Each structure stands twice: as C-alpha cells, then as structure tokens.
C-alpha cells in the first residue's frame, strides 16, 4: 500500500524543482510586471507615492509620440529584415540542393555570422561603418566617390545600415533550416510530376513550397519574434539612432525602465511587447494548422 502511494506522488516530486525555477524566473516576474503596470512607481523617487493608476498608465500609450514612432520603426525593421533574410536564405538553400564542391566547408563558413554574439556583431559592424576610420566608408569613398557620409550617424542611412547587420547575421539561420527542409523532400511527388510534364517553376510552386510550408512558417515565426525583440545589436550600433530612427520598442522599454527608472510605464511597454509577440504566435499557429 505504501509503495503505491509513493508512486503516485513521484512524478510531482520530479517536476517540483523545474516548477520552482519556472515560478521564480517566469511566473513571479510576470505577476510583478502586471502589478507594476497599473501603479505609478519611480524607482529613484521613493517619496512619490506608489498609487494605483489602473488603466491610466495604458492610456498614456496613446499620447506617447515616441511610442508610436517605436512601433513604426520596430515593425518596419522586422518586416524588412525577415523578408530579406528569407529570400537570401532560400536562395542559398536552393543553390545547395545542387551538388556543390566542398559543401561542408562552405556551409560552415556561411554559418559563421550566426555564431557571433549579437553585441560583437554590433561592435564589429560599428567599426566598419565608422565615418572616419571604417573600412566600409573607405571603400565607398575609393570605389564610388561617396565622401563625407556617416552611415550610422545620418538619418537617411542609419536604419538600413542596421538592417544590413541583422540580415548578415541571421540569413544563415534561414539558410540551414530551409536547406534541411529541401534535402528532406520526398522524391516520389517530383518524379510523378515530371512524368506529367511539369516545368521547374511549376515543380517549385506546386510541390516544393506546399511541402515546405510548415518549416517556412516556423522559421519565419522564430525570426520574426527575434527581430521584433532585437536589442543588443541596435543598442551597440546606434543606441536608438540619430533622431530616433532606430529606436525600437525594446530599446525604448529599456530606456524608460533603466534611464528614467519609470517602472510603472516601463512595465506597460514590456506588456505591449509581450502581447504583440503572443499575437504573432497565435497567428502563425492558425496558419500552420490550416
């Protein structure tokens, strides 16, 4: 009898440490953010009473010009980066479905950017973009005669310069996953279609893409969520950019929380970020299960 009782509780006992960690790292902070988001709390001004503001904190979102700007910047950054990364990744993957010499070696080289820490990537590209001493500025000058331009300091070019860094770092991610998908395509449908006289383009459109659809959606989802949250690279490259042109939601949230120490409104912004990302997941979930 005693042994039977123990067996019933054993699974919970095994789960307990993990649950504890989960509670500590995820659930408690989330609860605290919910609490903060409906209060007024300035970390450095403890004399200001921490009153309950309810929805007022959220209403402030609508009058915050900077917030609206960050939404525009973040959405454009995500859309453009992910789209370009996808095209580059898909293109490379398609090339590698043919027999390429020294395939393993070239793939390892192509994957290198992904392995670099985002902060290091930011610093690296920051040096290359440097207007006075950077190598990109040097070549722009010698090859195209473009002088006196600071890629990261100019309002017109800073945003795209950051997109380029993101594309450089994450296209390989799209590439390997899509390559794995392409390599695992079953032969049968292709043979059948070829017998029926399908062209390469038709093969691609009617067989490859539909079969790959789940993988494509997953990889787009992962990358979209990551691009939306991008912080390190942008912080190091421009810190929000000349005139807020690269101020994404995560940068703005960080600024409100750790420079202004306005924890109440900062929590609201963090919640907005979370809700948007959950929205993405729900949307993609629906698309995949269709």
């Amino acid at each position, binding site marked *: 009898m005693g042994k039977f009782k123990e067996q019933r509780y054993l699974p919970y006992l095994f789960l307990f440490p993990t649950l504890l960690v989960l509670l500590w790292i995820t659930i408690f902070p989330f609860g605290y953010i919910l609490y903060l988001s409906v209060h007024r709390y300035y970390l450095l*001004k403890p*004399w200001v009473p921490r009153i309950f503001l309810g929805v007022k904190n959220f209403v402030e979102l609508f009058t915050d010009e900077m917030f609206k700007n960050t939404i525009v910047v973040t959405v454009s950054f995500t859309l453009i980066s992910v789209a370009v990364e996808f095209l580059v990744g898909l293109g490379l993957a398609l090339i590698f479905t043919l027999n390429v010499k020294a395939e393993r070696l070239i793939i390892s080289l192509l994957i290198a950017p992904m392995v670099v820490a985002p902060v290091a990537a930011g610093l690296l590209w920051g040096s290359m973009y*440097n207007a006075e001493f950077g190598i990109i500025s040097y070549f722009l000058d010698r090859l195209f005669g473009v002088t*006196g331009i600071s890629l990261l300091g100019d309002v017109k070019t800073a945003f795209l310069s950051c997109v380029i860094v993101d594309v450089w770092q994450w296209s390989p991610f799209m590439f390997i996953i899509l390559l794995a998908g392409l390599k695992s395509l079953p032969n049968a449908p292709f043979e059948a279609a070829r017998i029926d006289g399908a062209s390469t383009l038709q093969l691609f459109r009617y067989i490859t893409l539909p079969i790959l659809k789940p993988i494509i959606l997953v990889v787009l989802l992962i990358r979209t969520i990551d691009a939306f949250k991008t912080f390190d690279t942008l912080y190091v490259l*421009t810190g929000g950019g000349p005139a807020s042109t690269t101020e994404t939601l995560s940068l703005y949230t960080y600024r409100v929380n750790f*420079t202004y120490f306005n924890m109440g409104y900062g929590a609201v912004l963090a919640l907005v970020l979370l809700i948007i990302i959950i929205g993405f997941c729900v949307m993609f979930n629906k698309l995949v299960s269709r």
Partner: protein
Amino acid sequence: MKKFLVAGLVIVSFCFSLGDLANAQKWSWLAEAAKPYRGITIHCIHESSQPSMIMSEFVPEFEKITGIKVEMETVPWTDVYKKTSLDLAAGTGVYDEMYVEGEIRSAFAEAGYLEPLDKYIANPKITDPNLDLADFIPECIWATGVYPPDTRNEFRSTKGTLYALSFDNAAMLLFYRKDLLEDPTEKAKFKAEYGYDLAVPVTWDQYRDIAEFFTRDTDGDGRTDLYGCVAQMKRHDAMTCESMNYWYAFGGRIFDDAMNVALDSLKTVEGLRFYISLKKFMPPGVTTYTWDEAGIALAQGLAVMGPEWNEFAPVMDDPAKSKVVGKIGYAITPKKIAHAPMGGGAGAAISRFSKNKEAAWLFVQWATSKEIQKRIALKGCPTPVRLSVFMDPEVAKEAANPQSPLRQLPALLKASGIRAWRPRVPEWPQINEIIFTNWSDAIAGTKTPEEAVSAAAKEIRRVMGE
C-alpha cells in the same frame, strides 16, 4: 667583504624605511583611525575616467596603511549611474563608496540614499585632523557635495547637508591647436580673408570663422581631411553638456532663478540654431560622437578645436594615443552674451546601505586628501579639487611647462566661478534625456530648432509638474 655587504644592506633598507617612515608620518592619522577596521573589505565604484583610474593605481597603498581591503570597480559613466541607482534603490548595499556626479547626487540625496557626512566629520577618531574642508574649492563642494544647493546664490553658498567630498574638478574647456592658430602663414591668410587677426576665439562668431577657415583638404586629394571644429552630437548625455556651452552662452537657460522652466526662449533657439550651423565644419561622423570620439578627433589631428572635458588633457599629450603631442592649447569656451564653460565633476559618497560606513569614510577622505589629489595632478591629470594643490609649487611648475598636460590649469582657474551648471534637481536624468532626444531631432533636421525647443520645454514642464 661580507661585513660591507651587510652594512650596505642595512643602510639601504634604512633609507627605504625612512621613505616609508615619512609616508607613514603623513598617514599616521589614517593608520591609527583604521585600527578597528582592519581586515574589512569595502566595495567602491568609480567612473573609468582619468582621475579615478590614476587613483586606482594608488589604492594598494591605502590597503597597506589601513589593512582594509578595497574592491575597486571602474566602469564607464552610464554603467556607474545604472549600477549605483539599482543598488541604492534596492537597498542591497553592494557598494560602500561611490563616485557620484553632481546631478545624480541630487536625486540620490533627495531619495535618502546617501549618508550625510556631518556626523563622521564630527567624530575625531575617524577623521583626518588635516581634513581642511575650506581647502576644497567652494564651487566644487556646491556642485558635487552639498544638497540641497542654494540655486540662487549659485557659487558662493555651501549651505545644505554635505553628502560627498568632491573628488574631481571637471569643466569643459576649449581645446585648440595652438600650433595652427599661431602659425604665421595661417595668420596672414586668415587676416586676408576675414579682416581681423587670427587668435584664440573669444566669441562664438570668431569660432565659426576659424572653423570655416580651417576646414580644408590638406593633401590635395580632393577630400576634406581637416575639420575646423568638432562637437559631441550623438543622441547621448554628452550632447546635452557639450551643446550647453553654446546655447547657455547665448543666454538660454533650462530654469530661471525661480526654478520655472525657461527653456523655450528665443535665446535657446538661436543658440541651438548656431550649434547646428557649425556641423558643416565638423567630421561627418560627429553625430555618433560622445566625449571619447571628440577627444580622438582632436588627438588624431582631425579637428582643429572643440569644447571637451578638461580631464582629456593627458590623452592629448600621450604619444601612444595622440598625433598632436604638446600642440593643444586650452582656453575657456567662447561667449555670445557671456562665457558659459560647462562645469562638472563628481564626489566620493557613502551609501546609506553600506555595512562599513566608517571604513568607507576613511577611503573617501584618503581619495580626496591633499596628498592624493596632488599626486593625481602630478601624474598629468588637471582636475584638482583643492586650492592647496593649485598653489603647490610643484604643481605650479608643471602648469608653467608648455609640454605638460597641467598647462591647462590656468584656463581651469579662469573658468572657475563662471562655469555653467546643469540644474541640480532630482529630475535631471529625465530632463537630460528630453533635451538630447529633441536636440538630436533638430540636428538631423526632422524638427526645426523652434519645434525641438518647445517640444523639450513642454516635456520638461510635464516632468517637473509630477
């Protein structure tokens, strides 16, 4: 033979210990006061700027005299701000002694995070008999030590509670290429073009002319490689301070005497517009420059002049980092209506949550003592906070030496008493942010100077009204 060797060794070690004795003599009060605290470890955090870095080199001596172990952290300014803010707000007491910049001191003191120093000063057991508070430059104590500061009687009143002892004396001065401004060929050409003599600019209009004059292509390859001036136009705290040299000189102010927001005046707009108009004489990357990059531009001979924090003087004369060793001259920043060289600096303060407050107090006194301040200065760092250091004959000799970084001291003295200060209010971090984000928009052209100034003023009023 052996006898001579032994005798020689005895004499040599005696001489060394004499030196130690002399040293011990100077610090006998410290050794005595530290007796109950031997073996304690204190954690200190400082900015990784020249004065603190040099002081860190002397820390082992402090440890030897007192037996107190010091864990010294030197990090960039934004990290000092964030780490100390978080530590104090959470009350965790990680840091015992902190480098607290003037503006931040207001926020911390108001929140009750810093230890008032009066009760420590009144305790003779742990206080230097030679502390000599009157030896501290009053402006520095007002700026970095006392809260609440008497904002009306800007430089003379040191009423209020003392929360920190000044550690470094910072001002933004005009760094300029003495060799270029004194060159006879340049002088002749300038006179021909502009109709007056080339000299160190006293007004901002002269500064503009000189900047325009020197922006040129020096090696004939069709690309401009010398720029007349440099600024710190990154969307960053550096820009607020640096730009204030310009628009404060035009008469602009953040607050008026009654502490009402007075930012949106024509003077501020004019000053900001002038600041932006100089951009064409600056290196193209200037919108990514903070004080570090501006310093590099000057040291690499890329720019001829610019306002810069005085503590960068040693970098200008370091052959490993500078191409213009000995060629930089120092003056106060130019005027429009009045001169407004920006003031700065920080003090050494004790955290209210420290568990070793007395030991931290000993460290604070040591770091700001006449002896250590003098040695920091003699290492080439022109940021002394004590009058006695300025008057010291060794320091004065270096100040007269045209090759020494200390040649900057006369300019620093001239700036003292007329410095412009960032408002010492607890809301400063937000006000700072509002100013540099709006100014960055104006520089980029997405807002006109008028729009930027009125948007900033509106935001600041909202912040102050809370």
